């Protein structure tokens, strides 16, 4: 292979460890979470979660009752009983704190690691005079020129002005394979602060002021995405708060009635009833679910501009996919040789190999590879032949051999023209038939000629990415429509769309047409997601409900998008949909579970409260709980224990199988609705049995 190889080879440097965030886990994370869970007892933190705040306030009151059981008048409750209630309530709050702290842990570690990277950055600023001085990154301004040598970290976001080098972006993306950076190209000239040059040296013009770099943004996002509640989360919080308020009213309203009925009830019992009724399960885990969802996104190496963006991904109804890179491997490849009459496949392979030997385009390389694979390696002594690289004018590549053979390969028309002009051979009839049949299958035919004879046709086709068909099918079962956008002609586009199983396609599309397509889909009431990397994708990314920019893309694209894929893998959009869905599903499932739980708790606590004054109500004690005290405590303990039991579910999300809405609804309704109704009856009874075992 002889090409203008001025590019450096990828360095075989020892792999740097991944960003610290990916190393922290297990014990360290747990330790940290336990510490921060205690800090969360701060009432200012608790007040942000109305449901748990009520539990926290309840614990204060029962704590006061533990000190003086007769605080609100004569009572039958003992100090031990009030104390037990207090401890269980505090545990309930603590479990919620632990859930949140566990969810936050990984994000915090990641943010710390990034911040560490940022503080260490220094840059070699090149003055107009050409003099270099080392300054901290915080002194670099937009437009400053810096030079970054091998093994140095790039101090600022910038554009490569000169030099070609491999850059290790693992601090940002977690991907250890270095990336080539060079000036001039839209995509690969962009460098990010915090990444490390691992070969050669780059001259960079800063494109961001301090505090505005991608690294700064990333730190803000990793931290900020956790603090901001999404609109959906706020809506659910409001609903849960109102339910809590309703139960506060319902329970508080009992007190005067009890006095009127001469039924003395314990304040601790009232608080226990209230805490058991309010939706503490979902209230305790709600923020953990959202944070864990963002964290899952992050571990997928996707940076979310907000939690809302991740949830919106779950709502998407139309996915707009670029053909190249998302559905197909990228460039077209040789997949078949069709000999014309008088030749065999091996002739075509050999001729194609010879003709492509000097062709440096990816298509050319794929012809060589495919020919060699099918045993068609040509006989060529290097240095003897004269190569003709592919050019847009000739639309051909080829080789003139020392023995005088003239081998050409190229667009069918170009080859026909070539043999006619140079050898006077007319176009064989069979060529047109073969070429047309290839084109209708969505592939591209290339003619191959040896001297004056057209030997056959090379079929170049788009190769689907592995697994893409299955993914499209899964999307369809979830009700998501897929639309492919391609610059190909309609015939090729239709064939690929059919092969991949897509719902629709737009052929011969210019980049601007993506925007029109999105607007059109949205006007039909669809929520649209798309991926993009170029500057001309930016308006479409901004218009889409979910826009995913590739990290390898331009800054304009990254700023317009609401998700950034650090791996630059467009197919990830498909995974994002399921992450978004799982966040919502987990919220819905645990809310249902939490509300369904209340039924059993009523039957445990109400008869216990009025056992003395209204003995007739003992008929409601359907679980046959041993004593009033054990009934109330069992309900409360169940209520508390269910939180840690469900933390793994909250952090991992409920099981997600791509299926239609009806099937998913039915499944979750049975598991979390009916399950939520039954579980506490069993759980409370079991705890009651344990509590009533004589010590």
């Amino acid at each position, binding site marked *: 292979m002889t090409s203008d190889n001025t590019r450096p080879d990828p360095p075989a440097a020892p792999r740097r460890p991944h960003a610290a965030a990916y190393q922290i886990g297990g014990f360290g994370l747990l330790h940290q979470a336990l510490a921060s869970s205690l800090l969360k007892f701060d009432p200012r933190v608790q007040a942000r979660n109305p449901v748990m705040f009520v539990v926290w306030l309840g614990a204060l009151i029962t704590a006061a009752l533990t000190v003086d059981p007769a605080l609100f008048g004569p009572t039958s409750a003992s100090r031990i009983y009030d104390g037990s209630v207090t401890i269980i309530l505090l545990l309930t709050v603590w479990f919620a704190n632990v859930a949140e702290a566990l969810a936050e842990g990984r994000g915090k570690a990641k943010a710390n690691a990034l911040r560490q990277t940022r503080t260490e950055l220094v840059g070699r600023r090149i003055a107009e005079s050409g003099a270099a001085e080392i300054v901290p990154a915080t002194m670099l301004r937009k437009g400053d020129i810096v030079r970054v040598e091998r093994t140095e970290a790039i101090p600022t976001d910038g554009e490569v002005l000169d030099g070609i080098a491999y850059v290790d972006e693992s601090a940002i993306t977690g991907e250890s394979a270095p990336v080539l950076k060079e000036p001039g190209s839209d995509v690969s000239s962009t460098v990010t602060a915090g990444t490390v040059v691992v070969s050669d040296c780059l001259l960079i013009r800063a494109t961001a002021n301090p505090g505005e770099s991608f690294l700064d943004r990333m730190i803000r996002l990793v931290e900020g995405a956790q603090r901001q509640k999404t609109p959906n989360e706020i809506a659910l919080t409001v609903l849960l708060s109102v339910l809590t308020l309703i139960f506060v*009213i319902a329970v508080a309203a009992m007190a005067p009635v009890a006095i009127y009925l001469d039924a003395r009830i314990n304040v601790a019992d009232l608080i226990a009833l209230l805490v058991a009724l309010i939706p503490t399960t979902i209230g305790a885990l709600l923020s953990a679910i959202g944070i864990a969802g963002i964290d899952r996104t992050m571990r997928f190496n996707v940076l979310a501009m907000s939690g809302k963006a991740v949830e919106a991904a779950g709502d998407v109804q139309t996915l707009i996919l670029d053909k190249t890179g998302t559905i197909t491997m990228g460039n077209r490849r040789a997949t078949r040789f069709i000999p014309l009459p008088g030749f065999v496949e091996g002739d075509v392979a050999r001729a194609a190999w010879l003709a492509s030997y000097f062709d440096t385009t990816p298509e050319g390389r794929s012809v060589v590879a495919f020919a060699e694979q099918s045993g068609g390696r040509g006989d060529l002594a290097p240095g003897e032949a004269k190569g003709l690289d592919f050019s847009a004018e000739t639309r051909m590549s080829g080789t003139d051999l020392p023995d005088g053979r003239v081998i050409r390969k190229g667009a069918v028309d170009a080859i026909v023209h070539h043999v006619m002009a140079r050898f006077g051979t007319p176009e064989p009839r069979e060529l047109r038939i073969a070429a047309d049949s290839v084109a209708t299958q969505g592939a591209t035919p290339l003619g191959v000629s040896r001297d004056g004879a057209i030997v056959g046709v090379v079929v170049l086709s788009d190769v689907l990415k592995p697994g893409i068909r299955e993914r499209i099918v899964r999307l369809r079962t979830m009700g998501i429509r897929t639309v492919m956008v391609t610059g190909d002609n309609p015939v090729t586009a239709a064939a690929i769309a059919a092969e991949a199983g897509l719902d629709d396609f737009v052929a011969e599309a210019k980049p601007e047409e993506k925007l029109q397509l999105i607007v059109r889909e949205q006007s039909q009431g669809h929520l649209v997601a798309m991926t993009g990397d170029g500057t001309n994708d930016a308006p479409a990314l901004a218009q889409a409900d979910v826009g995913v920019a590739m990290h390898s893309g331009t800054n304009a694209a990254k700023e317009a998008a609401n998700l950034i894929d650090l791996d630059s893998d467009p197919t990830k959009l498909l995974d994002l949909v399921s992450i978004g869905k799982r966040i919502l599903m987990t919220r819905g499932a645990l809310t249902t579970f939490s509300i369904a739980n*209340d039924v059993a708790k009523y039957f445990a606590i109400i008869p216990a409260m009025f056992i003395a004054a209204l003995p007739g109500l003992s008929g409601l004690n359907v679980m046959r709980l041993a004593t009033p005290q054990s009934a109330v405590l069992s309900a409360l303990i169940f209520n508390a224990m269910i939180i840690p039991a469900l933390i793994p579910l909250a952090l991992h999300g409920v099981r997600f199988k791509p299926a239609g809405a009806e099937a998913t609804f039915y499944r979750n309704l049975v598991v979390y609705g009916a399950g939520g109704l039954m579980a506490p009856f069993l759980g409370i009874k079991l705890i009651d049995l344990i509590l009533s075992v004589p010590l």
Partner: protein
Amino acid sequence: MLPQSWLQIALTLLAVVTLSIPTGRYLATITMDRKSWVDPLFNPIDNAIYRLIGRATATQPMNWKTYTFHMLATNLLMAGIIYLILVLQDHLPLNPLNFAGMEPLLAFNTTVSFITNTDWQNYGGETTLSNFSQMAAITFPMFTSATTGFVVAMAFIRAFVAKDGGANLGNFYRDLIRFTTRVLLPISLLIAAFMIWQGSPQTLAASITAHPVQGGTQTIATGPVAALETIKHLGTNGGGFFNANSAHPFENPTPLTNLVLTILMALLPAAIVICFGEMIGNRRQAWVLYGVMGCMLLLFLPITVVSEQAGTPSLVHAGVALQATPDQPGGNMEGKEQRFGIAASSLFAIVTTSFTTGSVDSMHDSFTPFGALPMLMGMMLQCVFGGKGVGFLAALVYGLIAVFVAGLMVGRTPEFLGKRIEKPEIILVSLALLIHPLVILAPSSWSIAMPYGISALGNGGPHGYSEVLYAFTSSAANNGSAFAGFNGNTPWYNLAIGIVILIGRYPPIIFLMAVAGSLAAKQTVAASVGTLRTDTVQFGIFWLAMILVVGALTFFPALVLGPVADFAAMRRGMTF
């Protein structure tokens, strides 16, 4: 229980369902301005009214804010007029018995009660009101309050199909006029004639002096009863002409009138659901809602019927035959009319509370504790069909919450009829959900703790609490029926009940109209396989569960301390 008793109930309900379908479709032609065969008859009438109030007033498109504003303003104006009529009736015509003007606090309570479709009565009609008051201050708002509830529900439904972002949810005045002239008036005329035939008086004379055989004289109160009686049921109002309400032989003379009035109460609330299906172009959705409401009715009804037939331990002890035979009804007949019996009285009681009408043909205070429990439940949920329009809206409050939770469970931002249910809707709907328990439980408990609250009770113990609870539940649900043992005509109850009625009526309507505005402004999202359909049996079950679990859990403690404790005590031989 005799089989014919169940058959009687089943046939009545069947009649309701059968009649509600064509009625609902007819309602849809009115609200959607579709051509109808009645147009030649009613267009001239309506046009005359439009000319009177100015055609522009009756045609300008209204968004949710203007619609709600005009509704509130009109209600306020009418309330002012009604209040003045009641207070000044001694200076007004048609007062043959020379009743004095109503005391201001009672007049406030009565005005609020009738303008809101509640019809709670802290007065006895035949001993307090002149015929003019009965007609202008009682019968008149029975039309307008029913219409108000209906038209806001229609404006709400229009939000789902709005094409203009909610700039036009209809015109309040046009809706008001068309519903009155094309629905309420014609049916009222027809049924009033029937009532007169059956023996209801319709006269401007105030009383008849009778000379009974045992000597002496007896004054029998009368008046324009038939007209009031008809709209009282058709409009789910419930305020009686006489203190005894529909147990009075002039208000409800025969078993046949009882049957017709029962059907009449249920007709329009059930028809509104059908109308909803026509308006959104999805009959399945309407039938799912109809099924949800119907299931609750079928759940509650037998509890009351069976409890009443079973009687009480004291009755057993007294040697009363509780078994129904062709000769006698058996069961707990205390407070019930012999001409109606157990089945018809129980059905009437459940229908009047479920459809939040509030008229009574038997004394609810005298029902057994478990017989009364479903009545309370009906009013606490207020969407077992519920009152005109507002029952439908109450069901949608639970429905939107159910959609929200169910939608989350399938991993999508929830949608209902193509509209995404998001933060603003959930906040408004949550507030609407909060009001009902707040205005029932807080004043009940306050009253039971205060001497001026307890003094009004006719009974003690849990039954006494049931009376207060019933009073505020009935007011909050704009029902108006009462546990008769309770004397509400005290300053505290006049004021508290009046305020509860107002809060129970207007804020939820305002919140829901705001939801309508918000929904109408949204683009309709196209449905896909990933969209959770809400017109399925599955979703109906979830909707029902949401109503029962959230609604019932809220009121469970109160019900336990009232009827359930009452029942438990009764079983042990204690009565209050």
